[in-house]
Structures are given as structure tokens and as C-alpha cells.
């Protein structure tokens, strides 16, 4: 038995499927935080704060009941917990003792504070401007970018502290696109709430929908039929190809390669037209539903898709040359170097993923199992966790059902992990490269703004 399993041993568990959730004492919670585990997510509901750890191949959901609204912070041991703790404060009102208590999603414009707690608080008397770390040196200056930033992009704010043209510090402020999705999903049936899961992030709508559907199915102890599950996987591949092509096209455009940008754009557009013909929607929104899928792919659609994918496959070697040599490579080399590689490496990884996903999608669409498209969901109570790998990283959904209705839910987007990483990587870089470096990360906003 490993350390983590030893720590949680004996703690009462909630029947969360497929991984039981341990309700820990303060000591167990604090001891587990010190273990070298990977923190995937932290969130809350009205009575408990939850954390999702990865321990090797195992996934470990744990909880703690806050004592007079306080719980021990995870951020001293897991820096990535900082944004989760600020979100838990803003939405549920639980405070992380020893952690970061700054505002994140709540900018002081909502009709009340703590919208997800049992008793939401009053609205703050005045809206607070976003707070950033003070600048002590008068040689330094600050460059604010956003929330109405350049290009056709998501709304976020990046505050760069500059020494000349060099970035000394990068701070992000999000929450601008907060739509109150968790409140909207609450007390709805999973079939209706799936429409919100599908609109957390438009370029990862399939991945979010799959994670949500799997969590629902785990909580209701049902399984999607084989054809539905194969079609989901196919759609996931297709979405990742389209999103990666879109990200690559944006980077190429910013780096001044109209050819690479055009090629990515054309392939993405043909793919989206194929998706509209095959699944009835260019982004495949609302096609994945809890219990299965809502649309079948007929033989004509699949053969059209096969052709489109052949085109993508033929394009990859060309893009490989364009991104690997010449002006594009020269512009990208050395940018945003850090623990997560640099800009050329991130582009290369995207291109490799396009190739792999195209191969897998072609193999899968030639070999789809026959059978029904969905199963009915029993109106039962239960708790479940679902997962799906999007183009930008893993997506995790947790939810609890009460007689077939959603009692509490939390979707975790890869943005939570990517933004802190981008902040670290931006420090030390040239200010003029900031937009390109951010584009190389493909930073998602809406999914983590909830």
C-alpha cells in the first residue's frame, strides 16, 4: 500500500464512482497535501471542499468539511491550487487558511456574493478594480492587455511588468467571461444541463460533453452503448484535429507565415464542413449527450469524412516543413522556453497530435460497431467522475445527482493548469513576443471562467 492510500485509510467514504471519495480529517487533509501527488482540481459544494489528486495511475478524490468557513490551504504545497482557492472563496465562500484570498471570478458586479453558498452574501458596495502586485522600482512600467485585446480572441487580462522591453513579471486576471454556469446546471436533469457543459469551451465542446456524460453515467451506473462510445471517440479525435489546426493557424498568422496560416485554415474549414454534413453541427455541439449520442453518422457522411481526413494527412508533411524551417521557425525559435518546452516544440507537438489523431480517426471510422445510440438514464441518486482528453489537456467533471437531478457539479478545464504555466514562461521574455507566446499555449478562458 502506498503513502496516499495509507493516509486516507479508515476515513469515511462517499460512494463516488468509479473512485470512492474519502472525507478526511484536518490532519489527514494536511498530511495528504504534503505528499508528492499531482493536484488535478479543487472545488467545493455547500458543505465540503473537494480535491482531486492523481497518484500514479490511480485517481483520488478527497474532501474536508470547513471549520467555521475555513479549511487548510493546499497552495503552499501545490502552487496550482491558488486559482482554485480563490474560486472556492468567490463562489462558495469557503476560505483557505494560509492560502491566497484574493478575488478571481467575482469582480464586484454580481447582484450578490458567494452565489453557490447556502446563504449568498450582499453585493459589495463598490466594484473592485483588479489588483496586481505593486511595482516598487520606478524604472519599471506596467503594460495592461485586455479584456478587449487584439485579434479575435477570448476576453482575459494580462498585466506585464516591463524593464525596458523585457518582461519582469506577468500576471493574469480572469473571470471576465464568468456566466454562472454552475448555478444554471444545478437542479436540472443531466440531459438539459449537458447544453451548458457543451458551451463551457466552444473549441472543446465534445471533450467537455464527453467528460460530463461519463460523470453522469458513472453516477447513474449505466454505460453508453458500444456504437455511441465509438462515435464519441471519433468525434473527440475530429475536434482535437480541428482545434490544433486552429491554434497552429493563429500562431502562424502572428509569426508572419500567411502560407501556413492559410493551409491550416483551409483544412480546418473542410473538416468543419464535413462535420456539419456528418453530425449536423460544425462544432459538434450537443451531439454527445448523457447516455450516448444524439446523432448517428451515415455511410455517406463517413466516406466524406474519410476524404477530408485524407486531405489533412497529406497536409501534415507540408506544415511540418513550414513550421520546422524558414521564417516561421526563425520567428518561433527560443520563444517562451520553460519547463513545458518552447514555442516551436509546442507547435511540433500539436502537429504530431494532428497526425496521430487523423490516423486513429480513419482507422476508427472504418470499423464502427453497430447498435443503439443511447440508453435511458434512471432518475437515481449518485456521484460520479468523468474524464476526456481535449486538444489542450485533460478535462475532468465531477457531479452529484439527487433523484436524477444535478445537486452539485464541477467541470475542470485545462486552462487552470495552462495560465499559471504561461505566467512563469512569460517572465524574462520580450514584451513584443508576449502575444505569440500566449498563442503557442492556446490559453483557454471560458471553460475555467465557468
Amino acid at each position, binding site marked *: 500500500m502506498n503513502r496516499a492510500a495509507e493516509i486516507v485509510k479508515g476515513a469515511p467514504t462517499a460512494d463516488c464512482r468509479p473512485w470512492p471519495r474519502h472525507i478526511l480529517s484536518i490532519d489527514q487533509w494536511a498530511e495528504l497535501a504534503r505528499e508528492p501527488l499531482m493536484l488535478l482540481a479543487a472545488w467545493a459544494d455547500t458543505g465540503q471542499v473537494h480535491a482531486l489528486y492523481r497518484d500514479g495511475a490511480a485517481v483520488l478524490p478527497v474532501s474536508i468539511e470547513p471549520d467555521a468557513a475555513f479549511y487548510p490551504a493546499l497552495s503552499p504545497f501545490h502552487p496550482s491550487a491558488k486559482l482554485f482557492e480563490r474560486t472556492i472563496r468567490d463562489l462558495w465562500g469557503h476560505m483557505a487558511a494560509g492560502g491566497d484570498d484574493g478575488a478571481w471570478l467575482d469582480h464586484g458586479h454580481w447582484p450578490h456574493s458567494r452565489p453557490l453558498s447556502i446563504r449568498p452574501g450582499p453585493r459589495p458596495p463598490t466594484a473592485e478594480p483588479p489588483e496586481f502586485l505593486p511595482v516598487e522600482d520606478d524604472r519599471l512600467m506596467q503594460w495592461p492587455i485586455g479584456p478587449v485585446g487584439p485579434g479575435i480572441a477570448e476576453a482575459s487580462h494580462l498585466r506585464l511588468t516591463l524593464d525596458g522591453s523585457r518582461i519582469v513579471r506577468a500576471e493574469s486576471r480572469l473571470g471576465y467571461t464568468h456566466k454562472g454556469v454552475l448555478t444554471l446546471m444545478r437542479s436540472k436533469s443531466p440531459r438539459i444541463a449537458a447544453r451548458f457543459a457543451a458551451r463551457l469551451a466552444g473549441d472543446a465542446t465534445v471533450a467537455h460533453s464527453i467528460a460530463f456524460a461519463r460523470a453522469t453515467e458513472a453516477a447513474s451506473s449505466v454505460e453508453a452503448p458500444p456504437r455511441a462510445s465509438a462515435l464519441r471517440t471519433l468525434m473527440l479525435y475530429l475536434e482535437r484535429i480541428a482545434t490544433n489546426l486552429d491554434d497552429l493557424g493563429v500562431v502562424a498568422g502572428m509569426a508572419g507565415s500567411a502560407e501556413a496560416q492559410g493551409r491550416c485554415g483551409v483544412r*480546418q474549414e473542410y473538416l468543419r464542413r464535413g462535420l456539419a454534413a456528418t453530425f449536423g453541427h460544425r462544432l459538434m455541439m450537443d451531439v454527445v449527450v448523457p447516455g450516448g449520442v444524439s446523432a448517428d453518422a451515415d455511410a455517406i457522411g463517413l466516406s466524406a469524412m474519410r476524404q477530408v481526413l485524407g486531405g489533412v494527412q497529406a497536409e501534415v508533411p507540408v506544415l511540418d516543413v513550414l513550421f520546422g524551417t524558414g521564417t516561421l521557425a526563425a520567428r518561433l525559435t527560443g520563444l517562451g522556453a520553460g519547463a513545458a518546452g518552447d514555442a516551436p516544440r509546442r507547435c511540433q507537438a500539436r502537429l504530431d497530435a494532428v497526425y496521430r489523431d487523423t490516423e486513429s480517426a480513419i482507422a476508427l471510422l472504418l470499423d464502427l460497431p453497430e447498435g443503439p445510440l443511447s440508453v435511458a438514464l434512471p432518475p437515481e441518486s449518485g456521484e460520479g467522475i468523468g474524464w476526456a482528453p481535449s486538444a489542450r489537456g485533460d478535462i475532468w467533471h465531477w457531479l452529484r445527482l439527487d433523484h436524477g437531478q444535478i445537486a452539485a457539479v464541477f467541470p475542470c478545464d485545462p486552462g487552470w493548469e495552462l495560465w499559471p504555466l504561461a505566467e512563469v514562461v512569460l517572465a524574462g521574455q520580450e514584451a513584443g513576443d508576449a502575444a505569440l507566446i500566449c498563442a503557442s499555449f492556446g490559453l483557454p478562458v471560458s471553460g475555467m471562467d465557468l
Partner: protein
Amino acid sequence: MKLPAGWPPLPEAERPDPVDGNTVAALAERLGLVSQGRLGRALAIRHVNTGSCNGCELEARAITGVLYDLTRFGLRFVDSPLHADVLLVTGPLTRNLRLALEQAWDATPEPKWVVAIGDCAVDGGVFRGSYAVMDGTASAIPVDLTISGCPPSPARILSGLRALLEASSLDRPN
């Protein structure tokens, strides 16, 4: 301008020749009124995100690509509202972005148009009624054109913008 004595004369290129009146008249005749109308119009568009899920952005980006190529119609995206004729708004208008939208609108010089694209920007879409959203662009600034869809296809966005281009050139003296 009177140059001091002994001063070298101004270089030739800086002394523009007067435009030949006959050429202008002949050109105007050849181009005709229709062509003049076509050549003399363009709209600069600034995108403002008011809380979109990134779906509308995906489709709006597509119209800048080589297959839809909005620049051939005289349309182009600009980086600042100061340079814009049109604000292209996406998202249900979250409360956290109302101020940003109002500031962008104030910064856009007259005459200006507002195009709300996507079901969210039209009336809040699925997010309508949430504590965090204002139910669409029109709750903060006047909207001239709405393009529904979740998200609207690039073809629909482009035809909406072209309709605006046609309409905006109608009231212009040719």
C-alpha cells in the same frame, strides 16, 4: 515658397504636378456610378468578446481565412475601437464585461454600427437569466444587426456583414 539666393532648388519629385482635369473626367465616365460606389467603400471591424464560449470566435476567425476572405469585400478586422466602423460583439454580455463593452463603444468614432453575432449576443442564449449575465448586447448599447446561431456559420456572419456594407453605402452620395 521663396528660397534664399544660392539655395539648391527643391527636388523634382516633391513638386507634385497638378492633376489633369481631362483624365479625371474620362476616368469618371469609364468607371460609372456603380463602380464608384463599389470602390469607395470599406468597413473596419473591431471584435468585442462579452463572455463568449469561443465558438463564435472560431467561426469569426474563419471569415478572415482564404476560403471566405472578407478583405475582398472591403471588410477588415482592426485592433482598436478607435479605428473601427463596426463593433462585432459575441457572448451573452457578462456583468464583468459590461464596462469593457461600454468603453469600446464610447471609443468608436461616429458613424458606427453594432453587430451582435450568436444566440448569446442576441438575447443571452442558453445563459439568459443567470445572475452573471445581462442577456445580450442590446442591454448595454444599441444594436443595428443581429446574426443568430449557436454559433452562426462563417457564411452567415459574412453575409450579415456584407448586408451592412450594402446598407451603409446606400446613404453615401456617389
